[in-house]
């Protein structure tokens, strides 16, 4: 049988259970709620930003089951059971993720609004493993716009982290 969660009243809340940054959370929400709004407005994880809300800027990028996606285009109800990682789950002020540290070191932002999305997207891109050159980083990060134009430093920060991650593997291969 189809699992008809809301048969008549369109505003009926539906129950959704997600693992967010390692913590299992359940909540009743209308089916219209996007993953981005769930994270920001209900779970108060405001790292992921609402830039365009149309999947055009990348500021809302988070990881769903390990893959980077635009959370503004995901309906939360459809992600029932998924594992979500936001910028808050990547690092903390006391223990920065290597990408966060590299963004600080390379001054890879100005206003900072796009930064959580940039860093989640970069983490996703490194995990995907298809970028090896600066040109490929630029192409595969093209879903994250930076209105301040910090692209040069963003690419340098990502290159540094990728270089550091590659180094041990190269040594192991020798």
């Amino acid at each position: 049988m189809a699992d008809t969660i809301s048969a008549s009243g369109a505003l009926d809340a539906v129950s959704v259970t997600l693992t967010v940054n390692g913590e299992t959370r359940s909540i009743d929400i209308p089916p219209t709620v996007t993953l981005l709004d769930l994270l920001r407005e209900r779970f108060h994880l405001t790292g992921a930003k609402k830039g365009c809300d149309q999947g055009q800027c990348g500021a809302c990028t988070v990881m769903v089951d390990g893959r980077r996606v635009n959370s503004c285009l995901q309906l939360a109800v459809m992600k029932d059971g998924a594992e979500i990682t936001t910028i808050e789950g990547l690092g903390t002020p006391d223990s920065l993720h290597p990408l966060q540290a590299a963004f600080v070191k390379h001054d890879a932002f100005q206003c900072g609004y796009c930064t959580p999305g940039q860093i989640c997207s970069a983490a996703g891109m490194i995990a995907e493993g298809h970028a090896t050159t600066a040109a490929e980083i630029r192409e595969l990060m093209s879903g994250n716009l930076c209105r301040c134009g910090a692209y040069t430093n963003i690419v340098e920060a990502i290159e540094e982290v990728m270089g550091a991650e590659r180094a041990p593997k190269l040594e192991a291969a020798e």
Partner: protein
Amino acid sequence: MMNFSYTRATSVGEAIQAVVQDPQARFIAGGTNLVDLMKYNVERPGRLVDITRLPLDRIEETPGGGLKIGALVPNSDLAYDERIERDYPLLSSAILAGASAQLRNAATTGGNLLQRTRCYYFYDVGTPCNKREPGSGCPARTGVNRIHAILGASDACIATHPSDMCVALAALGATVHVEGPDGERTIPFSDFHRLPGSEPEKDNTLSRGEIVTAVELPKPRFGKNHTYLKLRDRLSYAFALVSVAAAIELDGDVIGEARLALGGVAHKPWRDEAAEASLKGKLPSSSAFEEAGDIVLRNAKGHGHNDFKIELARRAIARALGQAAAGTPQVQANKSIN
């Protein structure tokens, strides 16, 4: 966004029934286009039938030596599948030319076929649009039409289909598998999308309740002699003004078979078999490629802002055929065109 009810289907049959029973229902998978359109109130489904849990996420080899791609295979998984990269690099390249990595991770194979036009007027509910509201008119014909069609348009609609992947699928001669209330059927790729005519509200030839279950690729051909050349207003993450999928099979020194399809120029991926036939038996040369371009564009018509697309398409066709013949396909991360 208008409120809606939500149904999670657990089988293809259930999904079909749920949509057949509710005239306001729509299928949803990746949601990268539908959710966007719902936010603009362009799409206002009363019910969404979630098909993401259906078992349509595999890429399987066919007895004929091709591949059958499940409708729910994400665009990124398809582009990077080692069989696709090895045997259908034109398809892989076209997918990677489109959207962003995040969108490709979410968007599905079936959904890519079903994405709607990016016409500004279609997206703006404050303006008339024959596709969104049949009979209301087409402001694009005399309005801002830089991104609009130069081939196959009608008085009712000059919108284009935005997909890159579909241009490659048209060139490769794919087949679409669908299932509906009356059972299963297959549709040749060229017949899946349609021209606007007097019914621009219909993007494709699916019937109510039919669901795309798979896209089948024929046995691989063309080796390194292919390219996907996409031209747009910025270097990445933008829809095509003109794109060209080209593939050539050489027979000794001459062209044994050619495939040629364009994106960004029509209401559907624009494959031109007359232009393909014109190349058969010829030595690969600029003059042969230019003649093929002339054939593709023989009935091209601009609407003002998009007049430039006719010459752009002519040159892009010649350049793409040259890349295909030389076995030097465009690399999507490389922003210079060889």
